[in-house]
């Protein structure tokens, strides 16, 4: 019915109904916001190994399954294969393993794991044969909390009845006992996923990690420990005996795709799916996206972003900003939209604040800039800034009104609140505010850039900013 309605609307409007637009917004926003990647695709990781294994276009199911069906033989080090095999062996053979997935933020560590887990769960032999425990270093901030969470996720609390868990020591003993009881062939394998693995390393004595790795290296309940981290130096953080128990399987994820693939990702992310209700519109939209991807301006925008970061999340963020501009009256994305989004995306936050300052405050900042130049970045205090400002007022300024000192002080404190200046140490009650040492948190280039776009800036102020000697 919906499609019928939109078709009817399609006839009287020029091809973009409100219905359509809201659909587009919904689909794309969901995609960019990066929910659990049930439907997401393994960009990046897939491209990472495209040289060893030609990945088919995936329409239904995941490419992993597809590849399995094809009986294809990828390169042994292909990351997803490695991980899938690892988990498969744990579940099927009861082999204990440990591995770390290391990669910069946004390189798809969690996505990869979720994908592999999803494929694993779909296998018939695996169903109901794997217990999963998900921990996050940001949530389980101590071993005590982590142990409680493990007990909860393994649903072992019911064994204890309603008894509230006792001490940390008891919980540990309890859990170790539980895991010791099992053996390779009869116990259900347990998968431990430790997100933000590096944070677990800072727990006291690394007790949790030692015990988990120790279990994985002894004939107890089969476990697989997968750690996710963005720290490249993670192995150096492990204590020597913990390290010895870790199997040294590390899976490195890098955003190793080049710009061509980046453009491809851009296209695929913006394209509407085939099952979009309004087919003509989807066709039109997709054509437009194809056109955009060949546009010089768009390519420049993307290139710039690509040079800054290969993190796909920032691309999604940029696209999100651009897609927000799509309305009923402006149904198709244009290069200008992307340019605007890119401008928003890359603006300097501090310089933005400067745009909203009063002239007096701008003058104070310029005074500070001069002080920085003269004293080579040494800290200053309000009195110095005020003196500098006075010099400017007395000798050069024509347009500026000579403000009272308390007024200048007020302006200065406003800057302090905006964190454009920062005191070296916490202000104490005894020290006089005028003599508190400060530092400017703006770079000269930022100040000059901000002045360029500052509306109605007096010329003498501009001149003063350009050169501290101009008043001579």
């Amino acid at each position, binding site marked *: 019915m919906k499609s019928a309605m939109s078709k009817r609307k399609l006839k009287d409007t020029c091809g973009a109904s409100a219905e359509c637009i809201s659909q587009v917004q919904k689909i794309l926003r969901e995609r960019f916001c990066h929910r659990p990647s049930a439907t997401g695709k393994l960009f990046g990781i897939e491209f990472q190994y495209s040289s060893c294994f030609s990945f088919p276009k995936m329409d239904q199911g995941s490419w992993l399954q597809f590849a399995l069906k094809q009986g294809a033989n990828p390169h042994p080090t292909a990351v997803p294969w490695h991980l899938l095999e690892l988990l498969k062996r744990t579940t099927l053979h009861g082999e204990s393993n440990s591995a770390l997935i290391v990669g910069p933020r946004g390189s798809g560590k969690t996505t990869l794991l979720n994908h592999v887990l999803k494929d694993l769960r779909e296998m018939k032999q695996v169903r109901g044969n794997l217990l999963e425990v998900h921990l996050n270093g940001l949530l389980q901030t101590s071993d005590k909390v982590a142990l409680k969470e493990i007990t909860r996720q393994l649903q072992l609390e019911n064994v204890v009845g309603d008894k509230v868990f006792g001490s940390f*020591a008891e919980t540990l003993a309890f859990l170790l*006992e539980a895991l010791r009881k099992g053996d390779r062939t009869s116990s259900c394998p347990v998968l431990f996923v430790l997100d933000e693995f590096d944070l677990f390393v800072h727990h006291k004595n690394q007790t949790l990690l030692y015990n988990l790795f120790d279990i994985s290296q002894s004939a107890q309940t089969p476990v697989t420990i997968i750690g996710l981290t963005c*720290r490249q*130096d993670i192995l150096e953080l492990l204590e020597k005996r913990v390290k010895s128990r870790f199997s040294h399987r590390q899976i490195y994820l890098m955003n190793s795709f080049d710009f061509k693939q980046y453009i491809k990702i851009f296209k695929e992310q913006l394209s509407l799916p085939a099952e979009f209700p309004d087919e003509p519109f989807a066709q039109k939209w997709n054509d437009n996206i194809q056109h955009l991807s060949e546009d010089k301006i768009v390519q420049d925008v993307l290139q710039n972003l690509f040079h800054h970061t290969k993190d796909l999340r920032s691309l999604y963020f940029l696209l999100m900003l651009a897609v927000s501009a799509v309305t009923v009256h402006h149904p198709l994305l244009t290069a200008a939209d992307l340019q605007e989004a890119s401008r928003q995306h*890359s603006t300097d936050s*501090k310089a933005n604040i400067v745009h909203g300052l009063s002239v007096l405050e701008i003058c104070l900042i310029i005074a500070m800039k001069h002080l920085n130049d003269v004293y080579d970045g040494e800290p200053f205090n309000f009195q110095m800034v005020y003196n500098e400002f006075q010099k400017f007022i007395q000798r050069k300024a024509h347009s500026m009104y000579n403000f009272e000192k308390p007024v200048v002080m007020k302006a200065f404190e406003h800057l302090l609140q905006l964190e454009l200046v*920062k005191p070296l140490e916490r202000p104490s009650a005894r020290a006089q505010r005028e003599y508190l040492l400060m530092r400017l948190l703006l770079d000269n280039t930022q100040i000059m850039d901000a002045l360029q776009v500052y509306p109605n800036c007096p010329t003498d102020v501009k001149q003063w900013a350009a050169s501290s000697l101009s008043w001579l």
Partner: protein
Amino acid sequence: MNTRQQSKLIYSWYGKPMSSDRKLRTTQYKGIIITSESSRTETCIQLGDFILVEGVNADRPYVAQLLDLYEDGAQHKRAVVQWFCHIGEIPQNKRKLLKREISSQEVFFDQVLGYDTDIDAQTIIKSIMVIPLHPGEELPITLNKEQTFYVKQSWDGKCFKALSPDTFSKLKAKKKKGSTPDSSEPFIPSDILTPLKKETESVVQSATKPKNAESKHSVSKSSLAKERQSQRAVNDIKTPTARKKLELSSPTRSKGRLLGSEVLDLLDDDRDAIAPLESAATKRKVTFTSDILGSPPKIPCSNDKSKSVSDTAEPCQRFSDTIRLSPYPKAKDFSEKAKNLHVEDDIISLVGHQKPGTQSPVLTPRSRRTCAQRTSALIAQHISVLNQEDDLSSSDSSYSSSSEEEEEEEDVPCTPEKKTKSSRIFSTPKSSSKSSVHTPAKTPKKTPLPGTPKTPRNATPEIPRRSHAAQKPASVLEEARLRLHVSAVPESLPCREEEFQDIYNFVESKLIDGTGGCMYISGVPGTGKTATVHEVIRCLQQAAENDELPPFQLVEINGMKLTDPHQAYVQILELLTGQKVTATHAAVLLAKLFNTPGPKRKTTVLIVDELDLLWTRKQNVMYNLFDWPTQKHSKLIILAIANTMDLPERIMMNRVASRLGLTRMAFQPYTYKQLQHIISSRLKDVKAFEEDAIQLVSRKQYIPRAGGMTARVVIMHSDKMSGFSSVWHNVAALSGDARRCLDICRRATEICEFAEPKRSPEIVGMAHVTEAIDEMFSSPYINAIRNASLHEQIFLKAILAEFRRAGVEEATVQQVYHQHMALCRIEGMQRPTVSEMMAICSRLGASRLLLLEASNKYLHMRVRLNLSQDDVMYALREE
């Protein structure tokens, strides 16, 4: 009574010396007089009297029977006793075997081997009454509760048994003797026991019979005596003919019975040596299903005898928690009647043993027991003969006096695996249904001894069973992978024979001497310290089971598995006694336990893994730990394991280090030859690796790390070698770590499996191993830098430039930013804004290519590289 009078007690001999032994310089006496100074009372205790002996716990003195009194060469008054134990002395998990309430007045005839029966006479407190009762009997109500104890069953450390008629009558006799005017406290209970009922009903041969007889004569050190005893046991097995002769000479036996009891006697003698028993052809298992235990007691009557025989055989397969009764003589040797009788008696004694409170002996039909009664007559006869026999034959003939049914009982605890299994089931009623469905496969890691860990509460957590059976390894590579897993327990530990022998000898000697001591074992991770120690303990346990060594109790703690050093006390105490108390209280209890003479205590072997984690500021945990073995009575052997060789010197205070002693052992890292040997021995007949490949793995592990960075610098200068770079500069940080070695091999099999999809000759070659090593030890930094975005790379370059400019390896973001902009200008790129710069900076910081200060300093945040400048240059130059 509960507390010993504080006044001084004077011990003096009663009467003249009975006999003296020249060689051992001992003189034996028939009584001892205890004079209390304050109350001016004299108490005379004679041989055979029941006495209270000072125990670990002041308000729980031990109960014993005085067997011998003598003065040794050093003029010390010594006493030899037969122990009785309170319910409190029996491990928690075994108490359930009784299935009845135990009053505080009941004691058990103690047949646990290894308790020191030779005590200081001065520890005797006073004499008391011990009255033997039949299993079914209620405890008589007496006025004097504190001075009268009752004994119904015996306890041999593994299970409870009814008293043998022999013991029973002896205790009875002693009781009467005890009430002679000599005794200072002529106490006679208000209700004297009913005369012995049919003895055969409750009879169980006392297992320590030979020991009792022997200890009467033994005046030497008990450990020696035990050794001799065990030797004799071995001898007995070897020379059954001698005993046979002895039995044949007993006149009143019918032919058939004689034959049967003879076989059983042999088997009974084998009781201590399990192995021969297991292989004995005459063995037959009579099984009882557990549900019989739970259901109302099955009353065996003559017509279901044969049925019960056949019944019992088949549930054996289905139920793991069955109690096996063996040995059972082959039916061929007997007349049908005799056979039935045995079976029946089995059942009776078993039921009586399991449910002593509920099972009324009257239920069993009388008619069946004509034969058994005859046996009891025999027993009495034998006892009289026995007393005149010499040492050796007395022990033997005491066996011969047994009736068949007892031996079957004996064997329940004989096989240790069986015992632990059944005890687990008893303690975990929840899991019993599960485990009955599938036979609980023993974990390769032996869970040792009665004193093994158990959760004090009934909660026994368990990971659920898997729903699909684990797949068996299908290919050679999978098989190899299974064997190469670190957790796979090899049959032997190659390349650690010497260390094994040293540790074994150390513990063995201490065990035999009954003294304490410490040994410090050090070595880098993955050199097999813990594995070797476990192997030693396993062998010692084996030996102890075969009675070649005195039994001992194993306690194992791991510093890493404790949440706090003081938790060590809690864990040790819990493993030793099952008590659960706070750390401070546990420390007090343990100190008391180890510092006071505990004649009934077994030697404790304590393994302390990851010792360095027990370090506290005051080091009191370590101090206590190493102080206990130096105590005279502690009987504590500590094996302390840690990584650093000089741990005692480095972190311990002098007083702790001195107590640790100088018995040290360092596990050297494995040499590549040894690693090679380990891998080969694990793979054994599985041909999955090329020889060269194994050698490569071992070599790689062994080559000492030349410092990754230096190696890389070398490579930088000789660019041609870049192919080798990964292999070279990523040699394992831990040389000689067997775990690493095995992990590499395992990975190599995986790579091989992928590389060879068609089942062509699957053999792991050099290439696969090299790839695995590369993968495991490749430096992540270089790759990370190469895959970074352009601006991130420029940022790193800017940092290098700034470092070079300033000459300091630290810069603020502002400084780097200026450099960055300069570089951008050169390259003709759009310069980034400060916000973008900060983003780049924090991204690099998150993956720890950079070390950053707290970000609230914004432009003044200081930046440092987390890898050397050379590495960065190397990574960037390749581009």
